[in-house]
């Protein structure tokens, strides 16, 4: 698993629960080191061990941990860059949803050895959508639940999300857009980032 993903889990635990909790997780997972490097690769088994350890340490199910990680990724000030990169996907929440098809390619533009699960958005009409995530790692759909929920707030949209489970490496999220412009949302200035 790419170091960026492992590092994301580490930063989620550290920023939300403190460094001590993270150290406890590394012991529970029998990691043998205390910090993931964002630009290196790690054995997939380590990622699973860490997720199981976080789940045990926090006393919540794995799915909840994954969804919280998704929320963290697009809302915590320490990872503001990621939120901005996702907001480049579109000017509205619906435009953003449609940009998810190309998210793995966008990720590869930034970090060429980062492989994200493929995503496909189906428009069922009447403001109902289904997002199908296909990848080698079960649970990515739960991360996307957190991302979508939080970015909907970011865009000021009111949505209803449901994880429909999955089989054979594919997970489905049903999305119902209740109101596209429900609230003010957070500002997104194109030029506020790099430079």
């Amino acid at each position, binding site marked *: 698993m790419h170091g960026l993903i492992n590092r994301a889990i580490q930063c989620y635990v550290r920023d939300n629960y403190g460094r001590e909790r993270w150290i406890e997780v590394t012991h529970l997972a029998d990691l043998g080191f205390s910090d993931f490097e964002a630009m290196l690769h790690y054995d997939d088994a380590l990622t699973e061990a860490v997720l199981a350890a976080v789940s045990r340490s926090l006393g919540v199910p794995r799915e909840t941990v994954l969804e919280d990680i998704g929320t963290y990724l697009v809302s915590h000030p320490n990872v503001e860059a990621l939120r901005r990169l996702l907001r480049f996907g579109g000017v509205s929440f619906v435009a953003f949803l449609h940009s998810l098809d190309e998210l793995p390619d*966008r990720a590869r533009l930034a970090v060429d050895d980062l492989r994200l699960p493929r995503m496909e958005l189906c428009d069922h009409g009447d403001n109902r959508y289904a997002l199908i995530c296909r990848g080698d790692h079960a649970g990515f759909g739960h991360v996307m639940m957190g991302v979508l929920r939080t970015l909907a707030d970011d865009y000021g949209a009111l949505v209803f999300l449901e994880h429909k489970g999955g089989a054979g490496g594919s997970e489905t999220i049903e999305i119902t857009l209740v109101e596209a412009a429900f609230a003010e949302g957070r500002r997104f*200035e194109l030029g506020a980032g*790099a430079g």
Partner: protein
Amino acid sequence: MQGIDHITPVLDVLCPMHVVLGPAGEMTHCGPTSRKFWPDDGAPPARVFDAFEVLRPRGIADMGSLLAARGEKLHLKKRAAPRTALKGVVMPFGAGGGAVLDLSFGISIMEGVRDYALTSTDFAVTDLTIEMLYLIEAKSAAMEASRKLNLRLQGARIAAEEQAFTDTLTGLKNRRAIDHILSRLIESGRAFALMQLDLDFFKAVNDTHGHAAGDAVLQQAARVLVEETREQDCVARVGGDEFVLIFEALSDRHRLAEIARRIIARIEEPVPFNGAECRISCSVGIALSQDCHPPSQEAVMADADTALYACKRAGRAQFRFFGEPENAGGSGPRPGPRQKSGPPPG
């Protein structure tokens, strides 16, 4: 102007940063994005040459010269602050002498987006500007992650060097190694001899021929020390031009004297460097662990140091055992076949 009015809505979508020009250079229409160049001052200037300065090609100040550059890449600068740098291209239309000037930020895109508070909708759908901004941010974030990794690796390297037992310039052992070896020897109670060796006239080489020459001399000295000692002996560089040699289970003064004599002789051989010859010598103080009661790391080192300074006082380029009376002339001058007391020439 016949023929342009019905097409301006098309231009507004396809190239929102365009300006429609009349035959005298009057700006008859601004696309929705180019309109944002004059946010607060109300209307844009009436004539295009009051709005923008054409930097290249040179000498463009009227419609005739502007249209002569049709289809070419133009470098422009907005006249009102901020003096945004722009790229542009102009093409005439119809028979009335009008033209369309299309603009772009080019490389100043970051400033442009910030100065005019532009959003995604200010760019044509087919424009790659948004992708470019995305890439700039994504690459900066990735670079930052790499930079942090490099900093951590650098820190780890420094830490590793601090823990290392090797002197990086000469490949000899370092002071940390000496501490480690001496404390083990003292603990085990085994007899050993310790030589404290200072290069003489080394500073003169550095001053005359430069630090690269100094490094070459140090490396040559290191080679000599390794070649003139046994495999199991320890040779370390403990300071700029200071070396320590430890001889385990060797306390025969004659053999030690012979080793010291050979070392001095070989170190005095000139080292060629960039056509020059660097000449140095060395002083050697020798201490035996059996002369210390009880032996300790500090005491043996101090004895060798005392002997070394006796050599220095006696004129350098010689060796001396600890405990030898200074007026005995030192061990260096006594049986040595090649006796030198002054600095070699050069």
